[in-house]
């Protein structure tokens, strides 16, 4: 779950805090200003601090937000957000407590007083334990959250590192200004877009994607008075007719109380749902990474020559809407003889681990990149001066593992990623071709310019005509040829 080894744990703690900060600021329509600090305070001990300019948390909610595991709190909330990725920040709090025995310090304000908490988690009861709570004046009307945790960890700046995570986060969130103060000094990630992405709308679940366990839970918790009402009110895209059809197929009366259904009946109901034809779910719940953001993000973090972004229209897999967008950065200072870099995102969160198991990697490898002017051995990532970005936006990301680092290879997902990349690849090929053409033309011109003085000199010897006049005429030729071709 992100805490397998000291290096990964340090990254996970930092990432949970950062993800929360980005979600909080974006939800409150505030352009994010985030400060991240990771400093060594002892052997394999680090102090992680993350500060944002979000709306802050009301004082009474602080202990629960940080000091309690919120199992399944987002079950019914079918809206795309970052914070669905791991154990959440409470996991970080617990990890800190287990490895250093120290409480976590949280400073927050909604713009009024500043509250400073020191918190621990009572593990046996899953309850927050407040060590101290100070209230300070806030003359500058600061709002936001500052979290400070001491954790065990190991720091590295390689491929799967905090730095790489921040860099990729900066690419997917070019509207965020972030300053990172790491063990090796400060790095700033600038803001190049001044608009926040639109807030995705919350939707009810679409019946096709509902698993049996979830269905049981929904039947218990619903406010609807009977089965028919439950189906029409708690799901999207289920009208009265479809609901009746489902009930008939499942051989359950419309008027049954949802709380009294037997297990076999629920199973029949679940099967019946899949058999009825329903309209695809609404896609207003999605916040894709749009083309402009991809281009801006890539431009500011990757020194290339050509940037391409493609956004696919939303589609559905098993009742869940999703939307894929891709970006390519090509040429410039990117190394040309190595395998290209693939950066994967799910809901604007970088996926650093398990690249090989991911549907995105599979889709990239299945494409024939040689068509687009790159080298490639079959079924591998292409070779060339290229960075490939793939963003997957969905209310429910089908991760393959609990670590939530790889997306499951549903055919619909692979297909969408491939279509997007092929579209981008065609645009890339155009650029590569043009570049090659330009280079050829340049070399050609250079070649002629090298020979014509010799030819002019010889012709002048053979014909006793003025050498300069001949050369001028030949140079005119080169000029014209360059224009027409």
């Amino acid at each position, binding site marked *: 779950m992100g805490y397998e080894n000291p290096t990964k744990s340090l990254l996970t703690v930092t990432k949970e805090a950062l993800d929360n900060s980005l979600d909080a600021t974006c939800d409150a329509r505030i352009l994010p200003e985030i400060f991240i600090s990771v400093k060594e305070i002892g052997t394999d001990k680090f102090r992680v601090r993350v500060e944002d300019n979000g709306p802050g948390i009301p004082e009474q909610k602080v202990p629960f937000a940080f000091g309690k595991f919120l199992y399944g709190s987002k079950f019914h909330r079918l809206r795309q957000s970052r914070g669905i990725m791991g154990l959440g920040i409470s996991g970080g709090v617990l990890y800190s407590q287990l490895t250093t025995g120290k409480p976590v310090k949280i400073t927050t304000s909604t713009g009024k007083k500043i509250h400073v908490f020191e918190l621990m988690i009572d593990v046996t009861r899953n309850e927050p334990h407040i060590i101290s709570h100070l209230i300070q004046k806030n003359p500058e009307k600061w709002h936001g959250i500052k979290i400070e945790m001491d954790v065990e960890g190991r720091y590295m700046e390689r491929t799967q590192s905090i730095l790489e995570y921040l860099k990729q986060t900066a690419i997917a969130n070019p509207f965020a200004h972030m300053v990172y103060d790491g063990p090796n000094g400060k790095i700033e990630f600038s803001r190049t877009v001044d608009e926040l992405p639109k807030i995705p709308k919350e939707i009810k679940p679409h019946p096709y994607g509902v698993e049996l366990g979830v269905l049981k839970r929904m039947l218990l918790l619903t406010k609807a008075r009977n089965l028919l009402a439950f189906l029409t009110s708690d799901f999207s895209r289920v009208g009265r007719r479809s609901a009746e059809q489902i009930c008939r197929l499942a051989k359950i009366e419309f008027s049954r109380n949802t709380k009294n259904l037997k297990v076999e009946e629920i199973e029949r109901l679940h099967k019946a749902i899949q058999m009825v034809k329903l309209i695809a779910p609404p896609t207003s719940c999605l916040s894709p990474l749009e083309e402009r953001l991809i281009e801006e993000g890539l431009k500011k973090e990757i020194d290339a020559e050509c940037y391409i972004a493609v956004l696919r229209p939303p589609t559905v897999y098993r009742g869940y809407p999703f939307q894929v967008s891709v970006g390519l950065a090509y040429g410039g200072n990117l190394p040309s003889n190595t395998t290209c870099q693939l950066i994967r995102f799910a809901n604007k969160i970088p996926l650093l681990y398990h690249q090989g198991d991911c549907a995105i990697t599979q889709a990239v490898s299945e494409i024939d990149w040689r068509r687009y002017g790159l080298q490639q051995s079959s079924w591998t990532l292409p070779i060339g001066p290229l960075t490939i970005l793939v963003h997957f936006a969905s209310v429910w990301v089908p991760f393959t593992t609990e670590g939530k680092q790889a997306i499951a290879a549903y055919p619909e997902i692979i297909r969408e990623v491939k279509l997007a990349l092929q579209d981008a690849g065609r645009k890339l090929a155009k650029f590569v071709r043009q570049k090659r053409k330009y280079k050829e033309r340049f070399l*050609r011109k250079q*070649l*002629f310019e*090298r*020979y*014509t*003085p*010799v*030819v002019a*000199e*010889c*012709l002048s*010897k*053979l*014909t006793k*005509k003025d050498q300069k006049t*001949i050369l001028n*005429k*030949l140079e005119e*030729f*080169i000029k014209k*040829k360059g224009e027409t071709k």
Partner: protein
Amino acid sequence: MKEAKKKIENLGGKILEDIEKKVNPNIDIPIRTLSNIVYDSKTRMLTLGGKSAKRFLFHTGHAKKFMQTMLISAFCKDLIDQNIHTSLRDLFYALKRTLPNSNENTFDEQSESNPIVVDLEVMLNILREQLHLNADIRGRVVGNVVISDRGDTVDLSKLGSGGWAIPSNIEDIKFKKVNADYILVIEKNAAFERLHEDKFWQKHKCILITTQGQPARGTRRVIQRLAIEFDLPVYVFTDLDAYGLYIYSVIKYGSIGLAHVSDRLGTTNAKFLGLTMDDVDNFNLKNFTIKAEEVDTKRAQEMLKYKWFQKPEWQKLLKSLISRKIKAELESLSGRGLKFVTETYLPTKIKNKDFLD
């Protein structure tokens, strides 16, 4: 000589016209590969067909060769103007230089400049000698022949062990006296020395000529002139391998590379004396043959297709080379004793008129 100069200057004029007309400057060069070689069975000569290729200045694949052609044309014009003669090697060094603002040379090797000289010859229909360029000097003669060369009278029977070295330009040489029944052309120097030392040419009243490998133009021209002017039969004596047989064909019909001047270099009445596969069997040379290499076999296979090797006896010989995978050098005759070649082999062959034609 004025003809050559005029032709070169006209070439320059033609290109200037192209430039004036805003046409991509080009020259038209007859193709000299096998595809454009015609074997005329009536005249028994290899000649060039009608195919030609244009060489453009503004063409990435042609530009360099075009520039090189211009360099050599201008250089030859200078030679003619100043009445200087020089060799192909000299020409290469005189024109080799690095082009400004690059690390590219006008010519990297002599193998680049040589074919362009031939291009000029073919294109302008003139001989290299008329461009004041000397061909390679190779080949020697010994026999009862008296010539006059640049005012000197030379008796080719009185030149000691070395014989007369054939110069590049044969045109101005006069044959004053020739006393011989036939000409024996020998591929290899060693065999020539053997025959010369044994005074074969005195005893058998012939002229000995060694080509020292592929015959140079001068040597071919000497053979042709002696054969025609004095009506002498010509017998060619080479190694038994594809290369030896090809040397014979070059003397007789002309070469693929110089098909444009076959009429001035070919000796159509030349006959092949040996070594043949039959010689190997008849003279018991089997023990002295050596294994053919892959290149020998490959060359023989190519030659099987040449139109001038279609006679049954030649096809049979080439095929036996391929199937038996052996070859025999002239020196192999020494296996039967050092004087075997002069006392037994050659007299027998010539007496029996055992030739291939």
